[in-house]
């Protein structure tokens, strides 16, 4: 129970800090917006082309923006050594990870869902009818990105060349998230939308495996 109460307290702190500064949400939103708009003007895709290539473009934009968003996740805890202060008072270090990955999932999901409508307008793709299903795919995909990214952010924040290290480690590891997320999104944007549970199953399995690994080995990632 202490794990969950500590997680709730830390999550509240993460949300409070972000909604006060808007640093992460603004950066990620602007990045995704630029990618969507630039690609739209460059390729000027038809509705059929958008349904075919749009999901891949959308998820690549999400992944790159996530690597920007996840970079400061643990780095900002190093500035005033607040991570040490947290480690001194939190019994289970998994609470620190759980709060951060919940916060990162929320930030990613909010950004993705907001930008989904911009994508729909620029690429002439209907999303309203399948919005709940898309939200589910985005949630599972974002959770996979956030779980892996939070763990790697803890590792890279201690390293030299940390700005380069996170994307280098993160992007190859996220291929198993990128493919099912893109395929599941693509199936939902077809003229006859289908919720592909086979791809969602892979996403759920990925989330469970990485979450368990973080629970088991997270403590070691925070050590000096």
């Amino acid at each position, binding site marked *: 129970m202490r794990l969950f109460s500590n997680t709730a307290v830390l999550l509240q*702190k993460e949300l409070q*800090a972000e909604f006060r500064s808007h640093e992460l949400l603004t950066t990620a939103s602007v990045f995704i917006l630029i990618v969507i708009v630039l690609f739209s003007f460059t390729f000027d895709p038809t509705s059929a082309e958008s349904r075919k290539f749009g999901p891949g473009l959308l998820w690549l934009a999400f992944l790159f923006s996530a690597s920007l968003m996840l970079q400061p996740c643990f780095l900002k805890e190093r*500035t005033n*050594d*607040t991570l040490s*202060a947290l480690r*001194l008072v939190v019994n289970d270090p998994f609470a620190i990870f759980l709060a951060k990955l919940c916060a990162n999932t929320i930030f990613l999901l909010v950004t993705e869902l907001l930008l989904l409508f911009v994508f729909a307008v620029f690429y002439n793709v209907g999303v309203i009818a399948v919005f709940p299903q898309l939200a589910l795919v985005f949630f599972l995909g974002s959770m996979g990105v956030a779980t892996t990214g939070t763990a790697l952010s803890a590792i890279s924040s201690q390293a030299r060349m940390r700005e380069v290290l996170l994307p280098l480690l993160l992007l190859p590891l996220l291929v198993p998230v990128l493919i099912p997320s893109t395929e599941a999104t693509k199936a939902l944007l077809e003229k006859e939308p289908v919720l592909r549970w086979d791809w969602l199953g892979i996403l759920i399995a990925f989330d469970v495996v990485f979450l368990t690994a973080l629970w088991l080995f997270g403590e070691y990632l925070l050590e000096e």
Partner: protein
Amino acid sequence: MSQRIARPVGLKFTNIEKRFGKLYALRRLDMEIGPGECVALTGRNGSGKTTLLRVGSRLTRPTRGEVAFPGLKESEAPAIGYVSHAVMLYDELTAQENLLLFARLLGIPEPINRIQSLLNGTNLASRAASLVRTFSRGMKQRLAIARALLQEPGLLLLDEPGTGLDTESTVWLVNTVRCLRDEGRTIVMCVHGESALSQLATRAARLDAGTLIADTRAGATFQNIFAAVEA
């Protein structure tokens, strides 16, 4: 600043060794600090003082050796107040929000009353609603000490707590540490040379290249430990 007197906790280092790659920060260090002692830890830059405190606070795992807390059962987690070089506070939160965050994580009952008492004690009550990023170094340091005292720790580890403080804040710090010492808390503080703060110590120890080279209680040799560092 504090009404309740904490149960003093000792600190015992047995054969502690800490390596960072090929660099030895601590070498086979043995030291036992009894409950209620106030120890001034001194030594040149890079002598291992900070590493020793971080090992004592269990933030850093030693490469070899053991850290124990005499006065506590094995199953009990020690309440440690730690003040480091960095202030360990969130710049983007207010003073009150910072203390409330840590108080809630510690599960302190009636945290608002405790925080109010600490803010009054550190003369920061009027700035409780200000963001920490707007604070001076001295104010941050006072708030860091308030954070360290939230859970009424029996063991206080202070890493150069006087760094960056003006005269007024230094006087406040000395009075606060004296008060904490007189309450019976165990205090280990890193200091550079002799100062008003080091004079509060009941024991002085000196590190050199990760080795404990002098350790004495108040007496004739006490001042020599600081003099050796200043020389």
